[in-house]
């Protein structure tokens, strides 16, 4: 058999899952969609002594509008995010990115919480959470706490979650008026991990000046990379080609730190970041303008 032996638990409530996690501590792993964990177990890179399967904790699978925020349970499948009309309405950026997250068969199992907890620097969903300013809720047996997406991702495959915590909910705020978005990536094949990718959100004021911009990159460092300096260049400006060019330059030369791999050297990744920045910014600005500006 491929994976090493483990003790299997399948709680049907969050309370039970939390109690099991507390009891087994560092020896236990949570099983969500299994689309990252099971490959690692099949390679025996990961050999948990105890596996706590969250697939029967149905209270963690939902997409719910709550006032102006959208709340998404951690066990919501990636496929649901792709097709749920509430997601499309609240966060078109997230909807646009979903078809790039792995292949359809993987999205049928993989979950939002699993992808975020996995914190792969090449993954799309962590980048989208930063771009949207999402908040993440974690629970342990004694209570809950909220984290900004920025504070959640702490490095290569690492997050701020403690060993006894379960990521339970993701809260997406609404886009401000006159906000445009764009997600673009370059991958060898549809559904493969991308060589480089960018999520852009641009908000304009009534006069068409940039009120706020955000650019976040995947596969560009040891986690999702928020290019804050480049985004600042656009703040308060009327968007034009010169500004966009300056942003693309700053990102590709300074703000990202891609490592390179067998598919692309780090120089090529920097080149792609420049190209994608120009294209994504243009699309986001255009979309922001379509949202009720002359």
């Amino acid at each position: 058999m491929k994976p090493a032996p483990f003790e299997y638990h399948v709680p049907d409530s969050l309370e039970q899952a939390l109690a099991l996690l507390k009891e087994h501590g560092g020896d236990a792993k949570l099983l969500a969609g299994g689309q990252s964990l099971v490959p690692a177990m099949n390679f025996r890179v990961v050999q948990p002594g105890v596996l706590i399967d969250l697939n029967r904790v149905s209270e963690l699978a939902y997409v719910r509008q709550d006032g102006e925020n959208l709340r998404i349970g951690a066990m919501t499948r990636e496929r649901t995010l792709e097709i749920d009309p509430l997601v499309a309405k609240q966060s078109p950026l997230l909807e646009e990115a979903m078809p790039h997250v792995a292949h359809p068969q993987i999205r049928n199992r993989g979950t939002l919480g699993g992808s975020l907890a996995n914190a792969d620097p090449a993954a799309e969903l962590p980048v989208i959470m930063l771009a949207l300013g999402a908040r993440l809720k974690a629970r342990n047996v004694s209570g809950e706490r909220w984290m900004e997406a920025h504070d959640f991702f702490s490095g290569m495959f690492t997050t701020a979650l403690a060993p006894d915590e379960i990521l339970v909910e993701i809260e997406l705020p609404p886009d401000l008026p006159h906000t445009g978005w764009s997600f673009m990536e370059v991958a060898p094949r549809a559904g493969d991990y991308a060589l480089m990718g960018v999520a852009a959100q641009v908000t304009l004021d009534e006069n068409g000046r940039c009120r706020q911009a955000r650019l976040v990159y995947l596969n560009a460092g040891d986690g999702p990379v928020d290019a804050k300096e480049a985004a600042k260049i656009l703040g308060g400006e009327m968007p034009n080609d010169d500004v966009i060019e300056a942003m693309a330059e700053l990102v590709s030369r300074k703000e990202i730190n891609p490592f390179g791999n067998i598919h692309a050297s780090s120089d090529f990744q920097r080149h792609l970041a420049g190209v994608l920045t120009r294209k994504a910014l243009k699309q986001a600005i255009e979309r922001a303008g379509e949202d009720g500006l002359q």
Partner: protein
Amino acid sequence: MKQLCAVNVTVNGVSYQREVEPRLLLSDFLRHELNLTGTHVGCEHGVCGACTILFDGQSVRSCLIFAVQADGHSVTTVEGLAKSVDQLHPLQQAFWEAHGLQCGYCTPGILMTMIPFLEENPNPTEMEIRQALSGNLCRCTGYQHIVDAVKLAAEKMR
């Protein structure tokens, strides 16, 4: 001590009860416990798609699910497609007619991927077919005849 867990699962309409070690993959359960060797195993880490089956009607990798997780669920494998040896499913018939396979290693996974895809997209474009196929590797055909076969199947199934 080895933990054993009960699995009650319906496969191709037949219900099975077994006791399994929790680390047994669903792909190995289908092949070794139920002798349904139509589900192929290529990579066992989610990349090749050969092991694709329907899990409650949705295409998934059976190498990335444990057999215990199928308890109470319904599974369809490639053996569940044809009504009989001489009455192939229209999708299988189309693969036959359009030469959609050579060695056949990838074929069961591709068929089980295309079943829900064609249900949701009865009239797909070539681009849509290619995107839906992106998670299935074929080392023989160069994909062209697979795409043709799926187009033909879409016509037959409409």
